[in-house]
């Protein structure tokens, strides 16, 4: 097999159930309880029994061996498990691994899960070790790393803080249409709101940074032949690829070009679709700079051109690009690792369009006739990049 054969996973597996749990504030619930609750709800959504699950995939900031801890908690004896931890994109890589294991026949039903109660126990939670050659200078990770990238981006392409703020304003406008969003009832943001928010690490202020919430999520995957028999519309994994070039921001080869350039090229190639074919675009927006970088790196515009692309609320509900339609990590939910929520939104949009009841949204919150979604995950400090392309059956 060589690179020309990488489409052999195309359409072989599908997500047949999903759920989120405890998003926002879940005082009195542990991270494990929130995660397990998500799994049971996702299984209910799929109409699949717990004891059919033989593949378990999980990563959290609370469990050093999350897949094993989750399996034990659920009372499962999985034949394959993966708790790989590459930051917030872990779950998009778990989906790739699950697809491989399903396609190889190692397992029949996979669950990919996450849970966090970081907000209700006091704030951002990480199990990251101190970075050698960096920790001594006391960077405020991960914000400092993204601020370094933002500053360099502003320097290279003439971007302003207003250009970054456009991203936060559009994300909030989406959240105002989504009753699940943490900021659903918090009103719109103005550019001035974003610029005048408390500075954290210049050039990023508080509203350039993602929310800090509780929350868990899970998706259930099977091979496509089995998926046809489940009670909801299966959403097929058409393409998936990952790449990473660094762990520490000081080792990042180019602060304004991420390895999402590579992951997205291979994922789109596997899917046989291109960026501009996507009806919805779900990008891991831990900070405003992320959305600009990933719009460019995934191929929606050339490097430096996202500044223009996000102007005039063009990535908001009334714009031409349907980006982060749940409100994103900036305005919907961000329980420490957001990757699975990017995935949920990509799939929910397609299921809603196919007629499944996946919740209520105000006008324009659901994208009409959506058949293809890209979900892009980011982990660490713009480090790990994983792209998944999802489609309804007619896109196979």
């Amino acid at each position, binding site marked *: 097999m060589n690179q020309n054969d990488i489409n052999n996973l195309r359409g072989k597996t599908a997500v047949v159930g999903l759920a989120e749990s405890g998003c926002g504030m879940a005082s009195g619930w542990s991270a494990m309880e929130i995660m397990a609750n998500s799994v049971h709800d996702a299984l209910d959504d799929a109409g699949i029994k717990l004891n059919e699950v033989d593949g378990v995939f999980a990563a959290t900031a609370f469990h050093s061996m999350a897949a094993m801890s989750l399996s034990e908690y659920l009372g499962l004896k999985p034949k394959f498990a993966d708790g790989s931890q590459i930051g917030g994109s872990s779950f998009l890589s778990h989906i790739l691994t699950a697809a491989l294991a399903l396609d190889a026949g190692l397992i029949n039903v996979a669950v990919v899960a996450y849970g966090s109660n970081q907000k209700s126990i006091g704030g951002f939670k990480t199990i990251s070790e101190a970075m*050698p*050659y*960096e920790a*001594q*200078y*006391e*960077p*405020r990770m991960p914000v*400092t790393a993204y*601020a*370094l*990238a933002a*500053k*360099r981006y502003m*320097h290279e392409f003439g971007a302003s803080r207003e250009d970054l703020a456009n991203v936060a304003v559009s994300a909030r406008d989406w959240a105002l249409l989504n009753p699940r969003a943490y900021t659903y009832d918090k009103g719109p943001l103005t550019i001035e709101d974003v610029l005048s928010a*408390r*500075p*954290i*690490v*210049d*050039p990023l202020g508080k509203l350039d940074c993602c929310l800090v919430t509780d929350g868990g999520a899970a998706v259930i995957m099977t091979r496509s032949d089995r998926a046809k028999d489940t009670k909801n519309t299966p959403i097929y994994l058409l393409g998936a690829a990952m790449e990473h070039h660094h762990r*520490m*921001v*000081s*080792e990042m080869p180019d*602060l304004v070009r991420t390895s999402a350039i590579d992951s997205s090229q291979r994922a789109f190639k596997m899917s046989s679709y291109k960026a501009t074919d996507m009806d919805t675009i779900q990008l891991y927006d831990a900070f405003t700079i992320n959305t600009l970088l990933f719009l460019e790196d995934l191929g929606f515009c050339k490097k430096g051109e996202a500044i223009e692309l996000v102007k005039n609320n063009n990535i908001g509900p009334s714009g031409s690009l349907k980006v982060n339609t749940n409100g994103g990590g900036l305005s919907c939910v961000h329980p420490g690792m957001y990757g699975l929520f990017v995935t949920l939104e990509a799939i929910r949009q397609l299921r809603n369009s196919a007629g499944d009841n996946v919740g209520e949204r105000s006008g324009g919150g659901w994208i009409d006739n959506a058949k293809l979604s890209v979900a892009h995950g980011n982990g660490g400090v713009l480090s790990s990049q994983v792209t998944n392309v999802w489609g309804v059956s007619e896109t196979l």
Partner: protein
Amino acid sequence: MPENLKGLVGPEQQFKNYLSEGKFMIQRCKSLDKFFFHPRVAFPGTGERDLEWVEASRIGTVHSTTCNRRLPEKGGDFNLSLITLDEGPRMMARVEGTEPDKVQIGQKVKARISILNGEPAVIFDILQG
């Protein structure tokens, strides 16, 4: 290298030892004639092991820079930058001697060894002129 590594220290400790002696040393691969940072047991990506320690020129350029906001009672705002050394490699460091939010990308800087949180650390000052 002896298999048991006895009698030696790893490159991370060696780097710190040099700093304690007042020396800012970086590694160079002899066969490639290339410098790299951070210190490693072999050249990143291709694995060459013919390495030597060379005293850095201490001159670099600000590649990116941030002002990290911190309460005055916890020490106040501080600068954190990425510096590209004249030898080529990039490293994280602080730039001092000016307001933490006044450091500019592209400014030339010069390293000195200072003490940060009780440990020797490379700190940069803006090079005038």
